[in-house]
């Protein structure tokens, strides 16, 4: 479980660095965010929800059955949209209304 950060999208706002519960994200020499300790990521997706330019994706490690899909979220009002980009280019989306409770 870890994340990858698209440096070309990063606007150096540091919101991901602030929120990471493991303090794992740092700035590189160009002030762009990168994950310094990829093996220490918990997979909580806090950074992904913070990123205003959707530069961060999370994925499952191959050792736990990951097949290369990348996940991020986009927030629009009460809707948190989860976007899963598959290696073949296909995209799945799941919308969650944050004002609605889980069914289970």
């Amino acid at each position, binding site marked *: 479980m870890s994340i990858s950060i698209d440096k070309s999208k990063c606007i150096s706002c540091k919101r991901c660095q602030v929120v990471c519960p*493991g*303090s794992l994200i740092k700035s590189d020499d160009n002030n762009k965010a990168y994950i310094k300790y990829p*093996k220490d990521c918990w997979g*909580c*997706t806090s950074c992904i929800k913070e990123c205003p330019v959707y530069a961060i994706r999370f994925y499952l490690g191959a050792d736990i059955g990951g*097949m290369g899909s990348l996940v991020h979220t986009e927030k629009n009002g009460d809707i948190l949209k989860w976007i899963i980009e598959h290696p073949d280019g296909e995209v799945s989306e799941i919308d*969650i209304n944050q004002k609605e409770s*889980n069914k*289970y």
Partner: protein
Amino acid sequence: MKIKKLKTDILIIGGGTAGCYAALTVSENSDAEVLICEKAHIKRSGCLAAGVNALNAYIVEGRVPQDYVDYAKKDADNIVREDLLLTMSERLNSVTERLEQLGLVILKDKDGKYVTRGNRNLKINGENIKPILAKAVKNLPNVKVLNRVNITDFEVENNRIKGAFGIGIENDTFYTIEANAVIIATGGAAGLYKPNNPGFSRHKMWYPPFNTGAGYAMGINAGAEMTTFEMRFIALRCKDTIAPTGTLAQGVGAKQINSFGDVYETKYGLTTSERVYGTVNENQEGRGPCYLRTEGITQEQDEALKKAYLNMAPSQTLKWIESGKNPSEQNVEIEGTEPYIVGGHTASGYWVDTKRATTVKGLFAAGDVAGGSPQKYVTGALAEGEIAAFSAIDFLKNNEIQAIDLTSTDKKIKEVENFLSDKNSRFTTEQLEEAMQTVMDSYAGGIKTNYRFNEKQLDIADRKILGLQKLSDNLYASDFQELMYIYELRERLTVCRSVIAHLKARKETRWHSFAENLDYPEKDNKNFLKYVNSRLENGEIKIIFRDLQEGGKPYEHIN
């Protein structure tokens, strides 16, 4: 390295579930100044970073707090403190209402009543539960939050707490913090044992990998009495993603089955530990892998499950989507995790009185660090934060803040400087952490031995952990984040030694898997309907057996 000295009425160590609620309580009920030290950032720190799927501790209509006490007592086979469980249970519903006022979405029926899941649970949207709590704390006038300050030690003299020492991991600062009262709320300990997936995904564990047992270790080192470290928590989880299983079991009624399709839970019993034990045994006897039977659920249930997991453990939903098969089309494989020490699920932690005062004067404990009261979940941690806060407010009335001696501060600064000076250390912190996990896995009942152990193995474990403690004296940190990693390792090693001592002291097997002593494979009610407690005296762990406190009457520290 910069050096800073701070002073506050109440220091709260850990800005997670219990810590945030304690701050809220102090602020609303007194003028006391509060300082929260949080090693990450309170917006998403602690157990609730990714969210939580349900509130699992609530007294539903027609039930009373004592019912919850009885449930927890049965699940732990009597080794609980009923006074703690009762005082917690009495507050579960009021803290729930407060959470709703703060902004948590809780499912209600058309009459405005909470919709319940089973006897104790409420349905919520808990993805943003931690930001909600953090926001409530941020707006409080007398509460200051220091993010990215990792507290490493208490300062205690004559059994009275004076404050704590810590390091600012982003500002290269050493902190001395004087406080009249301290509430410890650092959570439990993950990472003592080798995890399910020790490679790239080593931190894909259920309990937060950043909860490293700091609160336990500081208490142990300060001579506080601790309880029930031998009741380890092993969670039954979805394989690989280590995502919770309750949503499947209680949400869609999925049963535990083996690879032959047989429901095996009835064979072993339904307590938390029996469910793990059954799964281990089915695998060992050749009937694995084991699953939660989800095949045949409806398409609507599929979609609801995927959403529910996104709100708590998104990796499991990704797993379903990547495999191209929904839970209705494939059963969910399950496995036991590595053992954690976590007083919110089992009863490990500080030995506290009913007011959540520890045996160190001025030190109070709440949430996963506080012992004796299992099955807390989120609302129980809030309730304990509230109780500890009221007790700390009371304490301030009759006690004065005490100055920390310069000699203590200097000694601690020297220790920090030693870690920061390059001395051609043979090993890295990461190497010693791996060594610790291997030792615990092999000799103290890890996954490798199906959670079983005997006394000879425990003796080996203790010797090896002691050796690692010595090696850790010579570690080197090139920056303050690495310095935190050294302290985290040392905390874990301290906790490991106590866990080993407790496992050895309970010469029976009361809970399969959680504490399965092969030298004593049977339960021994004659000798072990007792708490196993301990205290560090002159560097040695002294075991103290205490009689069970039954009936819920208030408990005070006397001896």
